[in-house]
């Protein structure tokens, strides 16, 4: 229990940003700019690093860094990744560690296995979560930022 998901030794480079398509659907939490959607048919393997909000409906393995932006895992999204973002909302399935600078929300359809670090964690009724939650506001900072070569979402 509570073990961090094992990192795969070598991840292939992330696919080009062409795999993503702009969405007309705004992210549900705190979105002030453009939102990129990774569609349900898209499978990504590698590092994601972006400066805009991201909605994932597809499958992602690796690490996700959105700095000061919002990450939403849609109901169809299946993620095996560690994620760092301003806010993180999980409506789908995620295995990995979540670091939300402001807030992490697991909705009624969300299933998370991993550890959460965030000053505010909301678990809606029906949500499934197994792991630990660090509710120390001072703890929500990225452990390690990926290299600049990481592909943009």
């Amino acid at each position, binding site marked *: *229990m*509570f*073990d961090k998901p094992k990192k795969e030794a070598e991840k292939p480079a992330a696919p080009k940003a062409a795999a993503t398509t702009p969405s007309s659907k705004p992210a549900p939490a705190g979105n002030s700019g453009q939102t990129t959607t990774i569609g349900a048919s898209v499978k990504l393997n590698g590092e994601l690093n972006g400066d805009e909000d991201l909605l994932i409906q597809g499958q992602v393995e690796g690490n996700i860094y959105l700095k000061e932006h919002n990450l939403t895992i849609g109901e169809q999204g299946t993620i095996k990744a560690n994620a760092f973002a301003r806010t993180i909302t999980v409506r789908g399935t995620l295995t990995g560690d979540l670091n939300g600078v402001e807030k992490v929300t697991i909705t009624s359809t969300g299933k998370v296995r991993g550890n959460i670090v965030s*000053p*505010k*964690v*909301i*678990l*809606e*009724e029906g*949500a*499934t*979560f*197994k*792991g*630990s*939650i*660090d*509710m*120390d*506001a*001072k703890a929500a900072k990225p452990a390690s930022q990926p290299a600049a070569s990481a592909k943009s979402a």
Partner: protein
Amino acid sequence: MALFASPKNNVSNTPVQSGHEELGCPAFASLVEKMDADPERKYHVLDLAAASGNHIEFFSRFRCRYHIGDVLQVFSYLEPPEPDEPAADFNLILPLHMKEKLDLILVWDGLNYLDKALLPGFSEHLLRKCNPGAWLHAFVYTRGDMPVRPVPFDILSSSTMRRPLVEGGVGAPCYPQRVLEGLMPGFRSVQSRLLKNGIQEFLFQVQ
């Protein structure tokens, strides 16, 4: 030992809910008071119940790392070991791989569902992961019957909780305090109160 044996007494898996009951919890209130008195301390809490937004919201008032055990339902399926069988391996049932030692364990009504033959192994498993002086908070049924499965407790305030009332029930072991302390060596009851609904609230502390 049959780890996930058939439900005890062949009763239905799905309890029928018929409203809620509020219960005062003075020992929990005093525990919260103690935690409030040291706002800079970071607490490591293990909640053996399934993840609950209500519990998480309440404990977000503290600097804490909150571990979800989600093991109480499993307890109600554990059968006592046969004489020639090994005892339950709590390392498998409740793996505790966290780096930090625990300051508080929330067991709620889980102790009622562990056979007395399993309680020493359970307490030994927890003790290995507890800081000196760690607390364990629990409710024990004393009126003969208890819900077929452990029920979720909602925290309404530091001194009030709520539990669902469910139809049907099974016989409760009704562990007396002295028996519980004997079955859980290393934990000492520092506060115990019989609540008006026949539930005994316990606050144990690691000696």
